[in-house]
């Protein structure tokens, strides 16, 4: 069983991020593997371990820092790492990201593709479904459970939808996007980290993939970045109990008309 996992290095949830100008962000230098991608890597490793055979490859599209996502994947236990890097890929959208990844993946054998539910920087959750579309394979998003049938031809997954859970089956090859709850990602061991430092990373650029900049022209454009509106400062209700409760209820009803 060959499993491909898409990984992205993103600013940590705690990193300070500010709009520096309409088109530029000032991002604190604190990066980590996308939160949801850890579940994807872990699930791939568990499938391989359970079947007792197969190969797990991690793939990223990105420059410099992106390599750290691959190294984290290797440290956790992935067998191979691929990086797609090209100056023309600096500012592309989910459409172009998926199209480029699809072009690369077409040349690889695979049974299962795993990725995160969304990248926590852009929060789009677009790459997984779009990639499945380009590859013409079925996909299930936001899964919290995945079982591969013994004949390796079918998968059964559970996902949370509003107000319930669905159990769904689909034939392989297929793509799945990982939601929290799928598993508990392992912490890399020292040996894994050592292996990751030495790991060979295979690189591809647009030309190697047979794509031109025209093929990956984004379909959307960010007109401008700006900070979220500041909430007005908090009004502390200082009265003693139980007067404070009465005051709060009065404000919510009469002033805010929230109830």
């Amino acid at each position: 069983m060959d499993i491909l996992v898409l990984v992205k290095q993103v600013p940590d949830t705690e990193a300070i991020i500010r709009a520096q100008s309409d088109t530029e962000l000032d991002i604190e230098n604190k990066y980590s593997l996308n939160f949801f991608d850890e579940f994807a890597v872990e699930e791939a490793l568990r499938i391989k371990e359970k079947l007792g055979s197969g190969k797990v490859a991690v793939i990223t599209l990105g420059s410099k820092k992106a390599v750290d996502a691959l190294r984290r994947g290797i440290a956790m236990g992935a067998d191979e790492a691929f990086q797609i890097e090209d100056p023309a890929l600096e500012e592309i959208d989910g459409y172009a990201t998926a199209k480029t990844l699809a072009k690369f993946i077409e040349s690889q054998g695979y049974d299962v593709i795993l990725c995160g539910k969304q990248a926590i920087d852009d929060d789009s959750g677009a790459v997984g479904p779009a990639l499945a579309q380009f590859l013409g394979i079925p996909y299930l998003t936001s899964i919290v459970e995945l079982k591969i049938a013994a004949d390796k031809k079918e998968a059964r997954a559970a996902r949370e939808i509003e107000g319930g859970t669905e159990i769904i089956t689909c034939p392989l090859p297929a793509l799945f996007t990982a939601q929290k709850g799928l598993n508990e990602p392992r912490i890399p061991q020292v040996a894994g980290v050592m292996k990751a430092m030495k790991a060979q990373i295979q690189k591809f650029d647009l030309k190697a993939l047979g794509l031109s900049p025209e093929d990956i022209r984004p379909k959307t454009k960010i007109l401008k970045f700006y900070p979220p509106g500041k909430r007005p400062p908090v009004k502390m209700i200082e009265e003693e109990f139980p007067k404070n409760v009465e005051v709060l209820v009065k404000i919510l009803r009469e002033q805010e008309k929230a109830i």
Partner: protein
Amino acid sequence: MAGIWIFVEQRDGAIRKVSMELLSGGKELASTLGEDMAAVLLGYQVGPMAEKLAKCADRVYVIDDPLFQYYSADSYGESLANMVHTYDPSVLLGGSTFMGRDLFPWLASRLATGYAADCTDITIGDDKGIIAKRPMYGGKVLADVVFPQARPQMATVRSNVFPLKSLEEAARGEIIHIEPKEDSSTIRTKVERAEKKATGKVDLTEADIVVAAGRGIKGPENFHIIEELAEVLNATVGTTRAVVDNQWRDHNDQIGKSGKIISPKLYMAFGISGAIHHTMGIDTSKVIVAVDKKPNALIFDYADYGIVGDLFQIVPALTAEFKKALSE
């Protein structure tokens, strides 16, 4: 090419609230553009809902077929792609729901067009294109996204972005029935079973009022005081990851980065410290109330109103006070 399309979601014979909100907002966008608004409804035995939609929209495109009882991109997506090719709308909006966020990116790539996810506003720019406002980096930055060329312009929009308006008019929109091209062999993902939560409450993402407790609640046995408050306010109960990790509540109830993004009219947080991962999920709530025993709890930085105190004292008193006020 013209027209604003709203992808309407229905469940158990009712149109979802976020879809009605989008129809309300879509109508205004359409009139600004001088275009029509159409509703698109896919499902099985959806006739009565199509009738209702015909009172709100200029046109209603309907697929009513047993194969469409459950959602799959193989059925919904392929059919929508065909419909878009045939009728050529300029804008396609849907709710930022589970289904919307599964379907739209697939469909956008199939149509080779752009997609903006999880938007908190949609406006019209000088060039008559839409401007989709969306939070990025968990809400630390907002971005205005535009669609330079490709059509339709596709976006999913959060709940409570457009106010609900009463749309029903005597003038009837036309209902257009579409025959799906799919048959059961082309639908690869099959829903084996759907387990419904028995709460009967609206989902966190759609609720007008959310009341939540964090680790300050001390244990699952105490959640009844939150449930009781929710009952009086007809609110949905939420919680933090710390509580979910302790298995006091289901992950379905988690608000935040790795849970649900909510945007209710009122959010009340009890015994929640206000970690960034949590507050990322409540950013677009209209009014936020926080109760915590620590005066310096971070949550007060995000709240509109705060009370420093013991939740075990305050929650039951609030329940009683609201009950009294609402019965007056």
